[in-house]
């Protein structure tokens, strides 16, 4: 196989880069070890589009996050992604926290986030009545926003695909061949790919990829974040992202709505050795409960419908880096993409493209670049009249598969049959939300397995939750 650019990793950053590069006359191949697009950290995070108010001023991370935030207004329109600029509130509950507010505001200004404002106690409680009534004052950051993180990455990937990008899924990079001071090819479990460019967007595994070309000058130490999701109907809800004031040791745990109306609470921050340690722990979850009750005392933990955890690809030594090498043409190494990775993905695409141009990439702009991507029509979001006419046109919209989230059979078919479509139960879930409600897929799992088996013409025992080996049923009973 031969290509111009290999992007390693189909997470938010890898897919955003692939999409941006697909604006040029380049042959691009994204290589992903997982069975679905969406990455690891990109699918288990706090689903927030940050402003960069608390970044390290002058850093590359600050530059990219601050640049990225306003780009979301257009990107979510072009790519049909659910996004809401709900704003964040940082309440100061104690005297000590109150004293910290000016420094946080000052840092925000140094990051060019100028719209941060003080809120009085009365303002806070009017805007967000569930905040601890002992609140003294707060900071308000209007452009901190929430997004559907699954669909954002799918949208980048689908749009990249529409513009000719190839995706190799369930394909692991095992080596990179170099010679004459250039990258030559990428060796994968699916064969060798000759290429001029290699972009390492492997996040958690970017140190191992860098090692393949002798450029491992850092380690990735996974930093686990555990989260709770609460039922949409929970009695105590917030409308903004409620952020704690960070301490010297931790940024703390937040509570915010998701774009689908659930409450999201977390994360922990635990440094680990194991890059697959996405368990939740009793201690971790308890620490979230203790911390968040200081911010929002009435949180109803009985309404928890799920818990999950994700690993931030934390770099040691710290910092976001995009490295190129004089002795290795065509190789671009990304490292230290952490909590802000989802946010900065869109800006990272532009940054990497510009970097490649400065390094001599001279492919012309594509004339027929497809800028827009249409998402899957979500039945539950439509008016009764729209629903009625949709069923008339396509009767499978009348067949509800996931009761909790009102997901119809037609939406599941769309998830399976669109480009880079779902092949597993989790992949269906991340595209159309079947199984994300309060019964956590108790009712719809058998139905989704049946639909996948039917549509992919496979026996039910070969339908996986996600990766190979995650089967649901052993086989027919008789």
């Amino acid at each position: 196989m031969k290509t111009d650019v290999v992007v390693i990793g189909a997470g938010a950053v890898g897919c955003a880069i692939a999409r941006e590069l697909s604006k040029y006359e380049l042959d691009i191949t994204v290589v992903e070890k997982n069975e679905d697009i969406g990455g690891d950290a990109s699918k288990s995070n706090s689903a927030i589009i940050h402003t960069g108010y608390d970044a390290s001023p002058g850093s590359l991370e600050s530059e990219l996050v601050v640049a990225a935030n306003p780009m979301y207004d257009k990107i979510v329109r072009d790519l049909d992604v659910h996004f809401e600029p709900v704003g964040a509130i940082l309440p100061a509950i104690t005297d000590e926290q109150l004293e910290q507010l000016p420094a946080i505001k000052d840092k925000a200004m140094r990051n060019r986030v100028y719209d941060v404002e003080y809120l009085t106690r009365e303002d806070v409680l009017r805007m967000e009545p569930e905040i601890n009534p002992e609140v003294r004052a707060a900071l308000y950051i209007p452009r901190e926003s929430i997004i559907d993180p699954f669909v954002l990455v799918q949208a980048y990937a689908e749009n990249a695909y529409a513009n000719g990008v190839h995706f190799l899924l369930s394909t692991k990079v095992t080596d990179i061949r170099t010679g004459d001071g250039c990258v030559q090819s990428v060796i994968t479990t699916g064969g060798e790919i000759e290429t001029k460019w290699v972009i390492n967007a492997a996040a958690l595994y970017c140190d191992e990829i860098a090692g393949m070309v002798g450029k491992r000058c850092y380690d990735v130490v996974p930093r686990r974040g555990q989260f709770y999701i609460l039922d949409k109907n929970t009695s105590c809800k917030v409308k903004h992202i409620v952020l704690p004031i960070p301490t010297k040791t931790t940024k703390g745990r937040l509570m915010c709505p998701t774009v689908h109306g659930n409450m999201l609470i977390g994360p922990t921050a635990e440094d680990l050795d194991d890059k697959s340690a996405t368990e939740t722990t009793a201690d971790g979850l308890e620490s979230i409960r203790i911390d968040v009750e200081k911010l929002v005392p009435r949180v109803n933990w009985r309404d928890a419908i799920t818990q999950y955890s994700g690993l931030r690809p934390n770099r040691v030594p710290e910092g976001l880096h995009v490295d190129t090498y004089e002795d290795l043409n065509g190789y671009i190494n990304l490292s230290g993409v952490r909590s802000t990775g989802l946010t900065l993905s869109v800006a990272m695409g532009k940054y990497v493209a510009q970097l490649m141009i400065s390094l001599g990439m001279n492919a012309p702009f594509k004339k027929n670049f497809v800028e827009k991507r249409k998402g899957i029509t979500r039945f539950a979001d439509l008016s009764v009249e729209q629903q009625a006419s949709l069923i008339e046109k396509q009767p499978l919209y009348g067949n509800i598969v996931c009761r909790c989230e009102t997901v119809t059979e037609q939406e599941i078919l769309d998830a399976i049959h669109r480009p880079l479509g779902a092949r597993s139960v989790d992949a269906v879930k991340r595209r159309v939300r079947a199984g994300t409600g309060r019964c956590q897929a108790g009712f719809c799992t058998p139905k989704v397995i049946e639909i996948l088996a039917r549509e992919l013409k496979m026996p039910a025992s070969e339908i996986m939750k996600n990766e190979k080996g995650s089967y649901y049923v052993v086989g027919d009973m008789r």
Partner: protein
Amino acid sequence: MQKITCDVLVIGAGPAGLAASIAAKQEGAEKVLIVERDESIGGILQQCIHPGFGLSYFEEELTGPEYYARFADKALELGVEVLLNTMVLDIGDTGVVCMSSKDGLSIIEAGSVVLAMGCRERTRFQLTIPGSRPSGVFTAGTAQRLMNRENAMVGRRVVILGSGDIGMIMARRITLEGAEVIAVVELNDYLAGLTRNKVQCLDDFEIPLLMKHTVTDIKGKKRVESVTVCEVDAENIPIPETAVEYPCDTLLLSVGLIPENELTHKAEIEISPITNGPVVNQYMQTSREDVFACGNVVHVNDLVDNVSLESERAGQCAAKYALGRLKKAEDVIQVQPGRNVRYICPQEIVNSGDGGEINLYFRVTGPEEKVRILVKTGDKVIVQKRALRVNPGEMEHIRFDAKEITSPDLTVEVMKEAI
């Protein structure tokens, strides 16, 4: 959008909905319509292929499908109409909105509505069981559906958390299919389900039952590889030193059922925080006077036989309401749970002054032996009965005539018998 009118609309064609529809017909409602989201009637009983149903209602032992078939035959014979593959989206003030592939969206104007949507299972996440999130963790009912309706085997080495009835029945079912059930693990020191299920499903198959134990960890990246089981202390907190890791490929959960009240919630009908079902009076009437409710949507029952009885009352009263024959609720009395009573259903009694039999169903808070169950109006005892033992897993029942009520304070309590 098509418009349908009927006297009584029943939501759900499980045992509750079927019994309610029959009673509504028998009470004189002309057009009784059931809306069911499944492709066939019978509800959860369709997957309950084991015997044990009907012992009190029919005084004979039936399987789930045999039990509902009797009601289904009767309903169809009486001319009850059923819309299958149809999901109710909303119970509005102007009508009930539902949809199906076949008919698209419809709006149903009904004289009264009976909620009979049943319940759903609690999940691992509602219990906050930590660990990894592999495939192979099923609620017992989902596994039962896969095995009994889809012919799909769920695993080979199984641990079951919770001694609920479905869990114990699935322990036997899985054993009969040649897989191994390593243990049934119960947090409390009393059984969550019926004693007879312990005897017939666990003891007879020598399946170990670990009381005062719980699952504290789930391991496995793709499929379950093991679960960790710990003994718990008096406060039900796991004791780490007692941890045992059981290699297995499946964890089934039978840790409680929750009435399925999304529609009820949306219709702003009052819901009890204890039962998680609508608050009802003896007519099974909810806080919206044209909406009635019965079966597991109101409170989770142990026996379908009770569901049938309760649902007949709901269907009958819903028909009376639709025909303008149900007395208006004027003087409403709250039934108060007293000593060792967790909840009572119905929660309210409409005292019309001219009597009528009242059936109270309730659960105790904790297990107790040699007790006396009392119903009091003010300080006066209306009715009492003795029980050798009471258990939160088994619903209690007591009945009396409404004429006996003389005070606005009506209490049910469980007292220790003086020795």
